[in-house]
């Protein structure tokens, strides 16, 4: 099933784009290693791989945003060391990102021709609206759009908006359209529509690279599939070899690594936080049941967009839940605002540290005291000495590297900022600690400290919920793993069933492998 990575197969038509031996490193990570691929006119290539497999680096190199360290990029026979944004566009490479870059206050034609509007009126430089619309129509027809060129973008569905993006790419004479997770936010009917558009592009001789976590979609439209893992191309599947299992096997690379080091086994405590039938705004029709036990670290894995952060926001009271009950140590909680969660000892270390975790313009001491300011106040006047005292303790315990607790938090490194976020909660009495991607963008040393800290919290009887997209982190740190898939928990894994394969299978909505033991699917 696994072909050896030969540069080109015999059946392929002459490629117009070739990557050879591409290597790209970032400090501490190899993002791409000896990567080669060919793109021939009119072929649809599926590109799959886990989060962090190197897909986005590849996209950036193709888009001319980053330069590879090694390797050549050949366009129509001309070899380049790198592409620039300009040469990438000239080569006819166009991107449709998951996050659409449309102006929803303008109409379709204005978006397609933004910055290239046909003009009239000589020196007045007026937009020739009629010509604009007329120029847009053929591209809309090409993508099979069922909406006019003067429709406001705000009135279009997500799939229709993606069609506008594709039409825009076509209007720039694209030969290769790269669709990055285009279906992740689309309902099923809309997805079908988009897949039809891809088939239509192929017929017109336009190539497509289709990146998706939804393997059945890849199976439907791709003629061949490239599988990436840890920055390398680990497999190529031809048309008849494309199957769900083959892709998954390559993505995980079973038997690659021995089992990751696990945390030593522990006796879990009683249930601290119990959530039943929780529905979040992200997936209003799915519900989540979750029990979080005292003294355990429950890893919450899943693909980006599976609803984990939304669940955390609901458990912390930031978002109102659409349904369900949350109980802490037995009695139900109202949780109308984050303040209610904080008052009950449920704390969140949010995903976006700078926007929601800390106030960058405040000193360390004031960040740490903020949620517990009343305790630092006599009558209603804040005692800076009490604040500084508490902050000093946290600074020492967490080894926050800063000249003093009066240092502005924004001047610290990412790891130290994260420690400030942790410090503000540790200074109170946590019962439930929710950490959303706690080590993202943090150097390795600080990561280890944060793992140790989570463990000591659990040992002290705190219930810890850790959301993480880092597979090794989830497996190495958790006592138990829950995996989310499209807004519901697709399964729990106990220590004996911990494996990247099982986590990934659950993350893409399959049940965990039987040979690894029984995984309990959620009710």
């Amino acid at each position, binding site marked *: 099933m696994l072909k050896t990575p030969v540069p080109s197969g015999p059946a392929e038509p002459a490629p117009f784009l070739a990557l050879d031996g591409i290597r790209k490193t970032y400090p501490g990570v190899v993002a791409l290693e000896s990567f080669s691929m060919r793109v021939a006119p009119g072929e649809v290539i599926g590109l799959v791989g886990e989060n962090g497999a190197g897909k986005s680096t590849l996209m950036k190199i193709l888009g001319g945003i980053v330069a590879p360290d090694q390797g050549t990029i050949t366009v129509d026979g001309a070899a380049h060391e790198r592409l620039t944004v300009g040469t990438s566009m000239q080569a006819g490479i166009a991107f449709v990102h998951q996050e659409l870059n449309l102006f929803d206050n303008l109409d379709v034609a204005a978006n397609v021709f933004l910055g290239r509007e046909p003009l009239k009126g000589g020196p007045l430089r007026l937009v020739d609206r009629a010509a604009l619309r007329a120029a847009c129509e053929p591209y809309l027809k090409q993508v099979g759009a069922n909406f006019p060129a003067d429709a406001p973008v705000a009135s279009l569905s997500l799939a229709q908006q993606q069609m506008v993006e594709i039409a825009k790419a076509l209007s720039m004479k694209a030969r290769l359209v790269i669709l990055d997770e285009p279906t992740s936010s689309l309902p099923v009917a809309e997805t079908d529509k988009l897949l039809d558009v891809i088939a239509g592009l192929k017929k017109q001789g336009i190539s497509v690279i289709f990146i998706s976590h939804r393997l059945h979609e890849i199976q439907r439209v791709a003629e061949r599939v490239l599988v990436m893992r840890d920055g390398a191309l680990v497999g190529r599947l031809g048309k008849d070899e494309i199957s769900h299992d083959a892709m998954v096997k390559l993505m995980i690379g079973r038997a690659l690594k021995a089992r990751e080091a696990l945390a030593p086994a522990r006796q879990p405590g009683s249930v601290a936080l119990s959530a039943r039938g929780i529905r979040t705004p992200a997936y209003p029709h799915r519900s989540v049941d979750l029990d979080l036990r005292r003294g355990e670290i429950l890893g919450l894995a899943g693909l980006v967009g599976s609803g984990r952060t939304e669940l955390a926001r609901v458990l*912390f009271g*930031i978002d109102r839940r659409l349904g369900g009950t949350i109980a802490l140590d037995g009695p139900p909680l109202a949780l109308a605002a*984050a303040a209610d969660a*904080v008052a009950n000892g449920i704390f969140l270390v949010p995903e976006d540290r700078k926007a929601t975790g800390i*106030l960058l313009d405040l000193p360390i001491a004031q960040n740490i005291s*903020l949620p517990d*300011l009343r305790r630092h*106040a006599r009558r*209603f006047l804040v005692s800076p000495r009490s604040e500084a005292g508490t902050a000093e303790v946290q600074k020492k315990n967490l080894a926050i590297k800063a000249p003093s607790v009066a240092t502005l938090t924004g001047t610290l490194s990412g790891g130290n900022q994260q420690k400030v976020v942790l410090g503000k909660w540790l200074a109170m009495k946590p019962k439930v600690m929710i950490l959303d991607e706690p080590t993202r963008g943090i150097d390795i040393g600080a990561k280890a400290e944060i793992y140790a800290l989570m463990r000591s919290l659990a040992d002290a009887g705190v219930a810890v919920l850790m959301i993480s997209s880092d597979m090794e982190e989830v497996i190495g740190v958790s006592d138990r793993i829950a995996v989310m898939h499209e807004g519901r928990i697709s399964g729990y894994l106990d220590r004996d069933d911990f494996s990247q394969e099982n986590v990934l299978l659950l993350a893409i909505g399959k049940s965990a492998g039987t040979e690894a033991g029984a995984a309990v699917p959620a009710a």
Partner: protein
Amino acid sequence: MSKKDLGLLILILVVGVVVAVINPRFLLPINLANTSNLIGLFGILSIGQAFVIITGGIELSVGSLVALLGVLFIDMIATRGMAWPLALMLIIVFGGVIGLAHGWLIARLKLQPFVVTLCGLLIYRGVARFYTKDGTAGFAFGQNFPSLEFLTAGRFHGVPNSFIALIVISAVMWVLLHRSVFGRYLYAIGKNEEAAKYSGIHTDRVVIAAYVICGVLTALSAIYFAMYTRSISPASHGQFYELYAIAAAVLGGFSLRGGEGSLVGAVLGTVLLQELQNLVNLLGIPSSLNFAVMGGVILLGVLIDQQWSVFRAQRLVAEAARQQQ
């Protein structure tokens, strides 16, 4: 007192010296007393505005409220014969309720502060004019309220009581803004409302409270203004006062993005504005130029402040680079 406040104080003193040299009447007790009376009246407004601006909001209905509440107050005590302490309480409560309504619309219903208070500006002005049938509200001949008049328009050892009131209010509000839990919440919300919410602060309650404080202080100053002018024609009374208040706060170092500024700054900003008014009068500058002078000075002040912080940031970077070498 921060460096910014100190700079403002020096500017006030320098302008004062220049005016005094050109026209010594500036230092006459009567001139100083009149000016400090106006400082008292406008200062109370500016402090209220400052509490709203620090949350990143704005309160544009202040001038119209001064007219509406002034009209109501005079009507209560002059024509309806209500005891003035009761009327005073009612007006203050009314101001607070209006602040509550604004805050609720802004914090809970997520309307933009500019829009909500702009509508307030139009509504209260209109209601005030309708209430007096576009006439003038005032006292009948010989109608006197000795204790109220003493407290509002009177003087204590030559110092206008309105100015003394400002000092007292400033002191209380300084503690509230710079020392209390509530004040810290205000700054936190102004800097980053989301992060404040994620720290478990009831951000909407705090924002609503800021508008209530603004409403109460506006009501108080409306009474002072009413007792100062003693007759109110609601078509023009208090017009543009919201802009004086905003200008004073901006001069005092408040950022309209929120999260920045000191109470001393807002008061000093008011002092500078009134000093400029006075300067226009005393230096024989045509009074039609009044607004132009004020606008020019504010623009200059903000510009210098901005350039100064850019310069300081550059110097910091240069210094850091030198130390690295």
